């Protein structure tokens, strides 16, 4: 699962691409943890535009990353969430906890 990170003024943007499932999640968690520890972002933006599939493993991934970001006094938001991952996030009511913007389709 490819991940592209860019950082500017303590805003860390991570573009995720491909399928987020249990198989991919562990590696992603480690890489996100590492980026957060390295950059101490004030704002972490997760760009979901190229995420083609996500199951409940992605919910755990987002909750964990959200907590990590709060531990370093940062905020997190998720942007450009396509329809299928969006449906999973809505079923878990995650948009009530984390700012999420869904792609209009």
């Amino acid at each position, binding site marked *: 699962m490819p991940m592209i990170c860019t950082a500017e003024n303590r805003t860390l943007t991570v573009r995720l691409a491909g399928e987020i499932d249990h198989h991919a999640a562990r590696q992603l968690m480690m890489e996100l943890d590492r980026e957060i520890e390295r950059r101490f972002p004030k704002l972490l933006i997760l760009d979901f535009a190229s995420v083609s599939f996500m199951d*409940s493993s992605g919910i755990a991934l987002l909750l964990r990353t959200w907590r990590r970001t709060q531990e370093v006094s940062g905020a997190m938001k998720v942007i450009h969430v396509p329809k299928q991952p969006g449906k999973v996030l809505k079923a878990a009511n995650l948009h009530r906890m984390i700012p999420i913007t869904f792609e209009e389709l």
Partner: protein
Amino acid sequence: MKPTNQVKMEFESRSANEGFARASAACFAAQLDPTLEELGDIKTAVSEAVTNCIVHAYPDTIGRVMLRLRLFADNTLEIAVRDWGVGIADVEQARQPMYTTGGSERSGMGFTIMESFTDQCRVKSGSGKGTTIVMRKKISMRTARK
């Protein structure tokens, strides 16, 4: 009711097979001419059920997972996922949202997702007896769509 078509496959409980299982299910379900959203629902439900087998049924071993897909004349897809692993002692508890025995890497939302993405989700299990999940989803007929 007799199925109009069916497929049965068995694979090892390796996490690499999660993608294989949901892609196979989506391919087979394509015969019912589902919408993109319905296909997404099917892939998600299969992914959750198969991940449960890999994470919970066989926590320390590699075991067998069976996926059976059946189509019915009323445009219903039936998804059955079976394992011969440790089983679930309390199914009602396992189905509760946010309940998990999988630690911070799991959300406890698997059953909630399976329930909300299909029309019916039945779970048969018991301690040491393995688990069978049977889900049904009716695929809308093309002619009835706008």
